């Protein structure tokens, strides 16, 4: 069977020295190599330690509300002309798939005897999840957040603060997610002996892409089982939105061994890929190195990172996890852009047909799936609903002109 896993150095799709260089790896300052090795070792040990596995499962069940249900969206299905199943990660504690990753990493932090965690955050979802895990496990927590994002997502800043985390606004570079990652890495270089970096997505240097996958792969494993129970067969296609790629890889991993299942990743097309204002890294980026991994990067001719744009802060990142680069390059998965407008329309549609308000990130997956459904009439399409839309009401209010009793109706 084809393997889509990384080798010991973190290469996806062939080791260094192969005719085409692989994806991933570890392009990092030497000062951090020891910490990454320490993390790798602790994680490898935990993977085969039943005590750790049990602890993690218990925490997911009793604290995070996992396994999330697989929900048959009848009215949306009628609308789409295909059978649509939603993996309800929006029902998890803190409102997204992100809690799985942080609980795994925070447990690992305890095992390594470290007392402090740092994290980067864009929309604030990973920051809130990290602050939550830190509060639950009694760890000190600092979250780096681009200054632009602290203004866009003031409510999430308040949530993190209420949970006891320190939120540091990042004023360097473009003052968004990529700069928050830079600043977290700078903190880590100086604090690595007592601090763990809870990386927020399945990107970054080895072992993060594989490590994060190991904590979120429950999404796909559960969905596969739930789909078999519900429908008696595998879905014809699965879909997820792709920012850094954690919710997507978590779902995809459960189906990589099923070649008959088509896989779709939907990237943030912003104002449209042709406008240059987007975050469609795989669709419109070029191979390069960003934040420690070789992957697709939005960059200029000189290899300078270009700012991404998306209405969804969680997808607004100019890089993507290396395993997705590999799945795209190998043809196993298709990655397509979805514009801001398409995503917002899908957000309203899901609200109106199912009574579910999705995160705008997840609305990208819904919108893309509706497009796919046109060519897959009558088929079964399983979508990862990665998060809920509470955090996005400010954006929705502005986009649809909501909030006034006599205001226009969304989607009308």
């Amino acid at each position, binding site marked *: 069977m084809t393997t889509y896993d990384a080798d010991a*150095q973190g290469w996806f799709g062939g080791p*260094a*020295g192969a005719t085409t*260089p692989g994806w991933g*790896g*570890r*392009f*990092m*300052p*030497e*000062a*951090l*190599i*020891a*910490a990454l090795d320490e993390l790798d070792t602790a994680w490898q040990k935990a993977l085969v330690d039943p005590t750790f596995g049990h602890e993690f499962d218990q925490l997911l069940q009793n604290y995070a509300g996992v396994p999330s249900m697989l929900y048959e969206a009848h009215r949306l299905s009628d609308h789409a002309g295909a059978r649509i199943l939603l993996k309800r990660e929006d029902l998890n504690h803190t409102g997204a798939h992100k809690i799985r990753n942080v609980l795994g990493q925070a447990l690992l932090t305890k095992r390594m005897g470290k007392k402090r965690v740092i994290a980067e955050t864009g929309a604030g979802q990973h920051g809130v999840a990290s602050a939550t895990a830190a509060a639950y496990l009694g760890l000190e927590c600092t979250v780096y957040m681009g200054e632009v994002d602290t203004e866009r997502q003031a409510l999430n800043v308040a949530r993190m603060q209420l949970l006891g985390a320190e939120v540091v606004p990042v004023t*360097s*570079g473009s003052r968004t997610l*990529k*700069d928050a990652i*830079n600043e977290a*890495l*700078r903190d880590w*270089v*100086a604090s*690595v*002996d007592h601090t763990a970096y809870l990386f927020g997505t399945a990107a970054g240097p080895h072992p993060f892409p594989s490590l994060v996958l190991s904590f979120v792969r429950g999404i796909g494993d559960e969905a596969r089982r739930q789909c078999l129970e519900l429908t008696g067969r595998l879905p014809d296609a699965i879909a997820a939105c792709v920012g850094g790629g954690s919710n997507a890889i978590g779902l995809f991993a459960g189906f990589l061994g099923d070649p008959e299942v088509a896989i779709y990743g939907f990237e943030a097309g912003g104002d449209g890929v042709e406008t240059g204002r987007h975050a469609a890294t795989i669709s419109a980026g*070029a191979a*390069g*190195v*960003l*934040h*420690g991994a*070789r992957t697709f*990067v939005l*960059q200029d*001719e*000189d*290899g*300078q*990172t270009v700012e991404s744009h998306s209405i969804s802060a969680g997808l607004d990142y100019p890089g993507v996890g290396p395993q997705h680069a590999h799945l795209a390059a190998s043809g196993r998965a298709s990655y397509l852009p979805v514009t801001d407008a398409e995503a917002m329309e899908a957000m309203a549609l899901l609200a109106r047909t199912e009574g579910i308000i999705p995160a705008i990130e997840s609305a990208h997956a819904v919108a893309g799936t509706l497009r796919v459904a046109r060519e897959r009439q009558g088929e079964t399409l399983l979508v990862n609903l990665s998060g809920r839309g509470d955090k996005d009401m400010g954006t929705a209010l502005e986009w649809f002109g909501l909030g006034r009793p006599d205001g226009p109706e969304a989607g009308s």
Partner: protein
Amino acid sequence: MSVAIAFEKARADGRAALVGYLPAGFPDVDGGIEALRAMVDAGCDVIEVGLPYSDPVMDGPTIQAAAQQALEQGVRTTDVLRTVEAVAATGTPTVVMTYWNPVERYGVDRFAQDLADAGGAGLITPDLTPDFAPEWVAAADARDLDKIFLVAPSSTDERIALTTAACRGFVYATAVMGVTGARDATSDLAGPLVERTRRATDLPVGVGLGVSTGDQAAEVASYADGVIVGSAFVRTLHDHAGDRAAGLAALRRLTEDLAAGVRRA
């Protein structure tokens, strides 16, 4: 021309070499060239030209801001090579300090060739370690370019052996666990790191991160072969942003102070 020549010469004089850094394009491309030449004049033995990058994870605020200013003014990779050419023409060995993606984007072979053609001595690669550098190692070896990798206080002895075995020119020892930036006190992690590095290699060992005064340079020079200074030069230029002549004069004074320091050890 390898930087080894400069280290040998310093060693023959019984002192450490002074390695000075500025990012290209700061305050602008020609101003940067003038500044680096002033540093050569006033006593730098080796010059490091920084390639401004959008995501400099190993740099503190001073160098970040300078690189960002250079990028906002439109500095290109070709401007970095032009800077190298102008500085190397003085006869002082000149290396480029760069994060990896701009090199990969330019084309590793093409970058190595253009760097060699510009008279550059080699590369310092803060986010590229030898185990992920086979392409660069091959391109550098084909052109006799220096490969300067970093060792850190957190490096294991195995990592130090692996890293120094891949280095050519000198070994860059990062004195602190942290990013670039001038510090008030020198680090007590640097000495033991240099000692561990020496056990693995006969190459010269340069120590960087935090040095800003002649006294600190003298202290580092007592155990290292090279004293690397960056943020202090950048800050000096920055502090005289409105007055170029005064900036160059201050840069000269700082260089002389540091050059005296490496001779005082």
